[in-house]
């Protein structure tokens, strides 16, 4: 047989390298998906199935009772009202906290990049430094402070704490965003006679919708997933879902209802996950905007 005469496009063969690459990617994907899968599968099994110990097997029958229990009947301590309560608490906490925090962040970013009043650099530095510091050092005095303001153990208190601790991130995001908008725009508006607030509300805020979306997604995820602040400041009646979840799973005596636990875990994770899946692109943009700072 005559040797192949090279002409035209090179015949593409599946190289060992390509096989290895896809193998690696698929294995990694399995590693990442495994916990999610396990959670799901466990929540759909009955306790007898679970006791058999084949954690990765598909359920014999798909049984949603664990989910119902988790939602409205799971117990923490003596209360058996399910994570439904925690869900609504989380909503009551997260929605206002995100709205207020993003709004203030936008104002801060706007003021710091276009107006730069006295002390701006100092304020920004303080915020950035403060954002690095672990919360524990603020906690006890903050508890006392909120107690004095009658905000301790209340939803409003939790929201306030979230807004305060969210300031560094949202300020950074919006400042970085507004820096890319030319100063001339603000100057032209001032020549036209507009003041600080009018420029913000009628020009800058509408222009910053992409960043509002990114910041909201980030803050929502962060606040919904928060544990520490909810634990300390919310009080027994207003516990967010994450705290409830941990109480249900980790502080039950006797045999654990693993399927209920897993169902409760999924229910807690479902909201941020849904946001992530539907807005992946914004999520990525947020990571790039916030994380890669200089």
């Amino acid at each position, binding site marked *: 047989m005559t040797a192949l005469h090279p002409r035209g496009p090179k015949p593409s063969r599946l190289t060992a390298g390509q096989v290895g690459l896809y193998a690696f990617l698929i294995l*990694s994907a399995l590693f990442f998906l*495994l916990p*999610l899968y396990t959670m799901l599968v466990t929540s759909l099994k009955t306790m007898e199935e679970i006791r058999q110990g084949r954690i990765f097997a598909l359920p014999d029958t798909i049984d949603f009772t664990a989910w119902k229990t988790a939602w409205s009947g799971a117990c923490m301590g003596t209360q058996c009202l399910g994570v439904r309560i925690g869900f609504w608490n989380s909503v009551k906490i997260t929605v206002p906290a995100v709205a207020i925090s993003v709004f203030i962040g936008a104002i801060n970013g706007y*003021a710091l990049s276009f107006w730069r009043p*006295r002390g701006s650099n100092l304020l920004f530095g303080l915020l950035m430094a403060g954002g690095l510091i672990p919360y*524990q050092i603020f906690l006890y005095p903050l508890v006392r402070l909120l107690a004095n303001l009658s905000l301790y153990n209340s939803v409003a208190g939790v929201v306030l704490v979230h807004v305060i601790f969210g300031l560094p991130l949202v300020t950074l995001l919006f400042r970085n965003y507004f820096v890319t908008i030319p100063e001339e725009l603000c100057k032209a508006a001032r020549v036209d006679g507009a003041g600080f607030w009018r420029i913000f509300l009628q020009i800058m805020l509408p222009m910053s919708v992409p960043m509002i979306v990114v910041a909201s997604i980030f803050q929502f995820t962060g606040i919904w997933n928060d544990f520490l602040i909810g634990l300390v400041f919310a009080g027994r009646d207003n516990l967010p879902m994450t705290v409830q979840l941990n109480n249900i799973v980790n502080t039950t005596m006797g045999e654990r209802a693993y399927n209920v*636990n897993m169902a409760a875990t999924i229910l807690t994770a479902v909201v941020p996950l849904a946001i992530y899946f539907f807005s992946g692109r914004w999520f*990525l943009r947020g990571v790039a905007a916030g*994380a890669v700072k200089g």
Partner: protein
Amino acid sequence: MQTKRRRPLAATFALLPTWIAAIVVYIGTMVWSVRLSFTDSTIFPSSNYVGFAQYAKLFRTSRWLASLENVLIFGVLYVAGCLALGFVLAAALDRKVRFESLFRTIFLYPYAMSFVVTGLIWQWMLNPTFGIQATVRALGWQSFVFDWIVNRDMAIYTVVFAGVWQGAGLVMVIALSGMRGIGEEQWKAAQIDGIPIWRIYTSIILPQLGPALAASGMLLSMGVIKTYDLIVAQTGGGPGYSTEVPAKFIMDNLFERQNLGLASAGATVLVLSVVMAVAPFRYALHMRARRRGAH
């Protein structure tokens, strides 16, 4: 109009809430806590100053010392693991594979989950009686042992797994965007030189991602020091003190054991360690900026 000395008041007022938050909370409460650390407060704050007694007691407490050791082990492995896995995943996705956005979604979704959720899932999967150990044994390998989570020596590594699972995606996204920023002509030049692809990533791409990866590393390190939720959910600090971390030690002493002075001392030490970790970075950045300005 020349340089305006009087800036518009509206801007200053707009920033007032943030100023209040910064001064009252970020500075004020911190100062108060540090002050507490020098007193003998237990349940309630006291005004008895005892100098560094709380700190001395702190460093004689085996639980605290264990927590320091744990957070160091966890921190190093977690950051290294996230950086390494994240970089490799990014390099793999950079190769123009099919289904790239699907893979990206899969690698990043853990980041959207709470640490509590992460801790609970991994606690469940690593459960010796019902989890991976049981499954492998059921497959026939009777003597398979994977009870790390209840093993004093190995439990900390289970937390590392969970952490890397959650955090590698973040590094991947940062590394990938860095890779996409590297000009196409460097790739062409490397092809002409005959550099094998893996070598291109390690010798040419990786050095150029240095700043981005360092920033990620710092971000991750900040997360390490704050680690609390993950430990509480996954292991509760156990078995024993084998997965105890400083943040948890402080929290427990603040609210449960009601040892305000001790807890505040611990918190102060934590803050100092953050400052010490960040200061060299900031100094290096500052010096580099000054050198560039001088050019």
